[in-house]
C-alpha cells in the first residue's frame, strides 16, 4: 500500500523559526518512491532543520510535511517505525560494542539482527571483524558504517542521512556513496544532505538550498544544462592579484576561485582568449593559462546564489 504512493515524501511550504532566526523559509519539494534525493547546500542553509522536522524530532512552525502519506505531527508513531535516521553527529552508544549497539537498536524496533541481516549484510560485513570493539574506538569511516547499519536494522521505507560524509576521508566517502546506491537498488527511498557539491552527481535529483530557501530542484545533469553559459578556467602565478585584475576588466562578468583555477564568465558570453592573455600580461601576470570548461554543480550554485 505504501509502495503505491508516487511521492513518498511531500513537503509543502515548510517554515521553521527559532526564537529570532527563520531557519527554513517556505520550502516545498517531494521525493518519489525509491529515489535518491540530495539536499545540497552550505553549512547553516537549513538542511538539518528540515531533516529534524521530517524525522518527527521537531515540530514545524508552519506548512505541512507528509511521509508515506502520513502527517509528521499526527502520525509520528507510525513514521518512526518506518524511518531510518542517521544524525549528523555520531550518536550511538560509544561505551557499547559494535555488536551490542546493533542488537540494542534491533530490539527497540522489536526485531533481531538476523531478521534483516540481508539488508545490512554488505555494510556490516566490513565492520564485523571489529564487532567486539567499543563503538567509540572505531575510525570515522567505520563509525559511519555502523551508524548506517543501525539506521537500517528495522528495514525502513525511508532512510534519512544528515551529512553522512562530512569529516570522512575521500576513499570512505566514495565507498559510502556506493553503499547508498546499492540500498537504492533495493527499493529504499533515500534523502541525503551534503555540503559537498561533487557528491550531487550521485543523486537522482538534488535540491540546491541556501539561507532556508530552495534555489533549484532538478536532476544534476539538468541543473548543469541550465547553467546555459560558457565558462572558462584561468590561472596564473599570482592568483589573488588575478582575481582583482579580472574583476576590473569590462568584458568579465563573474569570477570565482575554484581550487587552483578561477572560473570566469563573460558578459558577451565569448572571450578572445589571446587578447585576455595579453591584457593580463600587460599588468604583470606570468604563466597565464586559460581554457573553456564545462560547468559543474558548484558553478551553478554560485550563479544561483547571486
Amino acid at each position: 500500500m505504501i509502495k503505491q504512493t508516487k511521492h513518498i515524501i511531500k513537503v509543502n511550504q515548510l517554515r521553521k523559526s527559532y526564537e529570532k532566526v527563520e531557519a527554513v523559509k517556505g520550502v516545498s519539494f517531494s521525493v518519489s518512491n525509491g529515489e535518491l534525493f540530495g539536499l545540497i547546500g552550505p553549512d547553516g542553509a537549513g538542511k538539518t532543520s528540515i531533516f529534524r522536522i521530517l524525522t518527527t524530532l521537531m515540530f514545524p512552525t508552519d506548512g505541512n510535511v507528509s511521509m508515506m502519506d502520513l502527517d509528521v505531527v499526527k502520525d509520528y508513531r507510525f513514521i518512526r517505525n518506518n524511518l531510518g535516521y542517521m544524525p549528523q553527529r555520531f550518536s550511538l552508544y560509544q561505551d557499547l560494542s559494535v555488536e551490542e549497539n546493533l542488537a540494542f537498536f534491533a530490539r527497540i524496533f522489536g526485531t533481531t539482527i538476523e531478521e534483516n541481516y540481508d539488508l545490512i549484510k554488505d555494510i556490516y560485513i566490513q565492520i564485523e571483524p571489529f564487532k567486539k570493539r567499543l563503538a567509540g574506538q572505531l575510525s570515522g569511516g567505520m563509525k559511519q558504517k555502523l551508524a548506517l547499519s543501525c539506521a537500517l536494522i528495522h528495514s525502513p521505507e525511508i532512510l534519512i542521512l544528515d551529512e553522512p560524509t562530512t569529516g570522512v576521508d575521500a576513499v570512505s566517502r566514495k565507498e559510502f556513496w556506493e553503499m547508498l546506491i546499492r540500498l537504492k537498488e533495493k527499493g529504499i527511498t533515500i534523502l541525503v544532505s551534503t555540503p559537498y557539491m561533487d557528491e550531487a552527481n550521485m543523486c537522482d535529483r538534488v535540491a540546491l538550498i541556501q539561507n532556508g530557501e530552495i534555489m533549484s530542484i532538478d536532476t544534476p545533469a539538468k541543473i548543469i544544462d541550465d547553467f546555459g553559459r560558457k565558462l572558462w578556467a584561468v590561472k596564473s602565478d599570482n592568483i589573488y592579484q588575478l582575481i582583482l585584475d579580472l574583476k576590473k576588466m569590462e568584458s568579465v562578468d563573474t569570477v570565482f576561485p575554484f581550487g587552483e583555477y578561477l572560473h570566469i564568465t563573460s558578459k558577451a558570453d565569448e572571450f578572445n582568449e589571446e587578447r585576455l592573455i595579453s591584457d593580463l600580461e600587460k599588468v604583470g601576470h606570468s604563466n597565464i593559462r586559460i581554457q573553456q570548461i564545462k560547468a559543474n554543480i558548484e558553478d551553478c550554485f554560485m550563479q544561483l546564489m547571486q
Partner: protein
Amino acid sequence: MIFGIPIIQLVVLVHAATLEMKSIDMYIVDNDLSSMSYELISKFKGSSFYNISGSSFSMDKANKAIEKNQTDLILHIPSGFERKLIRENESKVQLLIDGINGTAASLINAYSTSVISDFNRNIIVDLTQMPAIKNMNPIKMEESYWYNPELNYKIYMLPGILVILVTIISMFLAAMNIVREKEIGTIEQLNVTPIRKFEFIIGKLVPFIVIALFELAFGLLIGKIFFHIPIVGSLGLLFGFTIIYLLVVLGIGLFISAISSTQQQVMFISFFFMLVFILMSGIFTPTESMPVWAQRINVINPFYYFMRVIRMILLKGSGFWDISYEFFSLLIYAAIMLSLAVWRYRKVA
C-alpha cells in the same frame, strides 16, 4: 567505584559525624591543693573523656589558654575549697567553658557537672558561661535510654549516613543519565525510534533501583559487622519502603535531567536540593526542634521520611502500620515526581 566509595564514606563518616565528645581538653587551676581537690582532679583524669591540657595557679594564664584554643574547659578550684566543704558541708568550684560551639559547650557542661556531682553532691558548680544552669536541681535523676541504652552515637548515625549515601548515588546517577544522552547525542537516535516515553523512563529507573538496593544491603552488612548496629525490625519492610523511596528520589533525578541540557546545570540544581534536604532531614538535629515553617517544608523532603523510617525499623522494630504515614506520603510523592519526569521528557522539541 559505585560500591567502593560509599563504603569508605560510610566507615569514615560514622566515626567523624558523631556528636560524642571525646578528649575534652581541660585546664586546671587548683588554688586549694588539698586532698579533696586532688581527688576531684583525679576523677576527671580517670575519665576517658577528659584530657588534661595544662595547669597553673593563675586564672589569667588559664584564660589565655582558652583564647589560644588550647583548651575547651577550665576547672577552677578556689582556695578554702576543702575547708568549706567539711565545715559548712557545702563548697564551690567554677567551670569556664569555651562557648564557641554551643552544642559542644552544653555537652561539656553536662558531662563535667555530672562528674562533679558524682564526686560530691554538695559541691555547687558555679558556671560562668552558662548562667541558666546555675541553680542545679538537687534531685538526682535516674535516666534510662530506650532503643539505644548505651547512647551509642554510631548506632544512631549509621542509618542516617546510609540514607544519604543511597540517595546521592541514585539521584546523581539518574540525574546525570538523560542529560548525558543529550550531550553525546544518543538521545537523538533513541527519539526517532517508536519507544514510548514511559518505557524509556522505566528503563532508566530499574537499573538504579537495583544498584541502590545493593548499596543499602552492603551498607547494612558493614554496619552489622563493624558497628554492630541492631536490626530489630523486618528487613523486608525496610527494603520495600526503600523501593518506594527510590522511586521518589529517582523521579526527582530524572526530572532534573529532563529539564536540563548540560551536566553542569544538573550538578547545580541537584547540589542545591541535596544540601537543603540533607541538612533539614533530621540527620544531626531532631526535626521537631526546627521552626514550624521548616517542618512544613520537610513535607517535600524525601530524606526526612526515610531518615525517620530507617531508624524506626532498624532500632525500634517498627512494623508497617507504624510507618504507614511515611509510606503512603512517599507513594503519592513518587507518583507525582515520576509523572512530572515522564511529562517533561520530550521526544519532540
